């Protein structure tokens, strides 16, 4: 592997990893904020328990997103200095604004929320969480604006070979970003929905297995109370069944949201990056049909080997244009167009290193684009179907006794993560060989583009890149194990693991921390920190 390939692997690994944490942060943050609002308004104890429990898991995950996020900002300069020089005038601004206007807000107000349970008035404490969550949404917006400019460069003109921003409004309202932002946010909510559903299912199942909850003659659940296990009372049942239903509803709504926004995104992408979409379909020839299953050697990068076994006529046209008859251009039509517009060989320029003068392969890696696209939709749809099934199966007020269904529900947590990762890998690898894609559509600026081969840092050796790839991958692997172990531990522990006071005086829990009671425990409001460390 040369420096370019190592740098690409590193960017891919660090980004996909970071984006395991981020959707859960955004989605779960929003859900916890809504639950805490419900507690604030109703004062019902189960909402406090849900806030504490899901809030604890939220924080265990949040910190990993923070820790891995810094790498993202640094590695543009470290590994991709030519890219940074080329795009800095337009790409740096959304990154800087993300830190200044969004991440500052998120970090500061989350600190207030974690430590301010007793320091702040309940309404202000709740507001801090909302402010932090809104900060995370803005953070997503700014980052996607930056990414969308790589997908669809707008608002610039070329000066001395570099794009210079001339229209900030165009950059910050890039149509690619305006559909990608809701798509990503719904994707994040889908992760949170599956997370709530799977974990709540596990706890309901455990209550049934231990004989705490039973099902009465009328087919309805009879919640019980465990004499020996702290916190496993009737309220605990309410916590889990409500969490499960919230999770299922969130999962279904967010799948619908991703489908609608994804459709809009697809239609844009057919205009903006036709090759990416042709590669997503392994569509070699022009046509109207959507391939459900194609065989042949996708990896051979030779279109003529590929046969669509099952193809639904008209669907591809619908995805691209909204009708069932328009012929969509296939790879074999697009390749000559790309060669004509952007050249057949990389220029003889030292920034291409050893690759200068090589022939350009305009076809993205079809194995990745074809299957990435289908995994995104498949995992997303599967999670939504499962959520629908879960609501049906729990209509009695608890889950069936089946251990296998429980395992499936827990395993199902992974599906939306998979959908998110597959979607990003698809869209980023589908953009290759460009790091900034040219846009042949009438609204794009066709001559603003950059080959990935020109983007890597010329002064950085392959050895340095390999050292960082190995180091970061190793560190990330270790931390993933630690994070998952901690999550599992706190999940198994149940609400009481996040709310030890339940074990001491379960009956008083709500009086202790009722929203109206500013002090809690009868102490002055600012006497003690809510010690989180």
């Amino acid at each position, binding site marked *: 592997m040369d420096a370019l390939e190592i740098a690409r692997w590193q960017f891919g690994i660090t980004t996909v990893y970071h984006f395991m944490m981020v959707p859960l942060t955004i989605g779960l943050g929003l859900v916890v904020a809504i639950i805490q609002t419900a507690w604030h308004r109703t004062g019902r104890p189960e909402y406090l328990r849900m806030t504490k429990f899901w809030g604890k898991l939220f924080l265990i995950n949040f910190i990993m997103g923070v820790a891995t996020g810094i790498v993202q900002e640094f590695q543009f300069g470290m590994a991709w200095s030519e890219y940074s020089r080329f795009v800095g005038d337009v790409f740096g601004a959304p990154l*800087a604004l993300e830190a200044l206007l969004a991440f500052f807000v998120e970090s*500061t107000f989350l600190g207030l929320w974690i430590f301010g349970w007793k320091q702040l008035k309940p309404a202000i404490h709740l507001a801090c969480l909302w402010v932090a969550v809104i900060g995370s949404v803005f953070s997503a917006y700014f980052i996607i604006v930056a990414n969308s400019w790589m997908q669809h460069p707008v608002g610039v003109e070329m000066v001395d070979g570099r794009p*210079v921003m001339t229209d900030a409004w165009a950059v910050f309202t890039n149509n690619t970003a305006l559909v990608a932002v809701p798509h990503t946010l719904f994707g994040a909510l889908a992760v949170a929905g599956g997370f709530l559903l799977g974990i709540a299912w596990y706890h309901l199942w455990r209550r049934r297995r231990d004989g705490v909850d039973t099902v009465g003659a009328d087919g309805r659940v009879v919640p019980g109370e465990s004499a020996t296990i702290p*916190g496993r009372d009737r309220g605990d049942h309410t916590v889990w069944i409500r969490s499960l239903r919230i999770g299922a509803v969130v999962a279904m709504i967010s799948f619908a949201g991703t489908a609608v926004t994804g459709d809009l995104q697809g239609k844009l992408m057919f205009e903006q990056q036709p090759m990416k979409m042709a590669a997503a379909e392994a569509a070699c020839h022009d046509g109207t049909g959507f391939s459900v299953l194609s065989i042949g050697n996708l990896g051979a990068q030779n279109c003529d080997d590929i046969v669509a076994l099952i193809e639904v006529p008209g669907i591809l046209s619908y995805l691209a244009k909204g009708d069932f008859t328009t012929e969509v251009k296939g790879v074999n039509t697009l390749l000559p167009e790309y060669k004509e517009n952007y050249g057949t060989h990389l220029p003889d320029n030292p920034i291409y290193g050893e690759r200068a003068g090589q022939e350009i392969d305009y076809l993205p890696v079809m194995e990745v684009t074809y299957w990435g696209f289908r995994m995104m939709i498949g995992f997303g749809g599967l999670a939504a179907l499962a959520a629908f099934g879960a609501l049906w199966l729990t209509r009695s007020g608890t889950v069936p006794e089946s251990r296998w269904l429980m395992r499936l529900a827990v395993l199902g947590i992974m599906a939306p993560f998979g959908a998110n990762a597959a979607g990003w890998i698809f869209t980023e690898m589908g953009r290759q060989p460009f790091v900034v894609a040219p846009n042949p559509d009438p609204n794009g600026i066709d001559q603003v583009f950059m080959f990935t081969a020109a983007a890597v840092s010329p002064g950085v050796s392959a050895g340095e890149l390999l050292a960082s790839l190995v180091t970061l991958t190793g560190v990330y692997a270790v931390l993933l194990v630690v994070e998952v172990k901690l999550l599992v531990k706190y999940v198994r522990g149940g609400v*009481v693991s996040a709310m030890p006071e339940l074990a001491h005086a379960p009956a008083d829990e709500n009086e202790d921390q009722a929203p109206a009671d500013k002090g809690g425990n009868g102490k002055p409001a600012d006497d*003690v920190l809510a010690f989180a460390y």
Partner: protein
Amino acid sequence: MELLPTIWFIAIAVLWTGYLFLEGFDLGVGMLMKAFARNNTERRVLLNTIGPVWDGNEVWLLTAGGATFAAFPLWYASLFSALYLPLLVVLVALIFRAVAFEYRGKGDTDRWRARWDWAIALGSFFAAFGVGAALALTTTGLPLNANGDREGGPFAWFSGYAVLGGLAVVGFSLLHALAFLALKTDGDVRHRARRWFVRLLPVLLLPIAAWALTIQALDGKPWTWAAVLLAVTAAAAAWTLARAGAEGKAFVALGAFLVLGTTSIFGAVFPVVLPSTLDGAFDLTISNASSSDYTLGLMSIAAAFGLPLVIAYQAWTYWVFRRRVSAASIPDAHSFLPAVAAKAFTTKG
């Protein structure tokens, strides 16, 4: 002189100063986890002084980096790629440190806590050292060619200046943390921190003073020399105030030292942002490394609105958590209560 690039040079100097001021003490507190705190309760005192704020402080680093990318892309690209390995160390250090803060209290064994304590202490040290080295090198120069790329291999950045800058930020952070702990804690920790502060001030400020003086000797202007003199006065004032027991004023005086010190350094190198040690013609300056006036104008509007807001709500955070933390106010670590384990315990008992 171009107006907007000059404004952004100042803005980035402000961001770095803000970073060193705020994260300075939390990096220092992190380093003191092993050297200063004597037992688990004291470590928790230390942690909880910075608990609500360290993450917000760290965003100053991200903002400084992001603003450099947006305002001076060529500076950002050359500096970050030339310092590839040291910045990798900074990243790994910051990752472990952040995770350690959150995860330390979530395990039940001493071994678990001890491991994360080391992660905090070493992470804080290497982050401070690496950032200091990078800042020093951007003032003294790197072997950059005409394209702004590093010549001479992965370690070509290494020089005495890198070590000096690293020690400068480590030393300052430790001292700043002692001033902060004297201000934010009570009981034994408070008094010990103040004693250490008085005793160690001359040693801990030596490297940062040496860096500032070196820069003055290389590029000093009359007004930046004056800033250095004022900085030394502020340090002396901090020492006197701490001895007299005025912890708040000592903290402010040390803050003034930092602001004057970074002002003298950034002021001296202006308008060069990253000199090339190979050829003065390859120096990156505010003119040849900056973004277009359009981008800088846009960023100026955002910063004029955003930065005061950040300072306001971060100040409010410090106000909310203004009470001193003491060993007495640290509750017992509530042992983790998993439902399953509790059940096993009960059935056995």
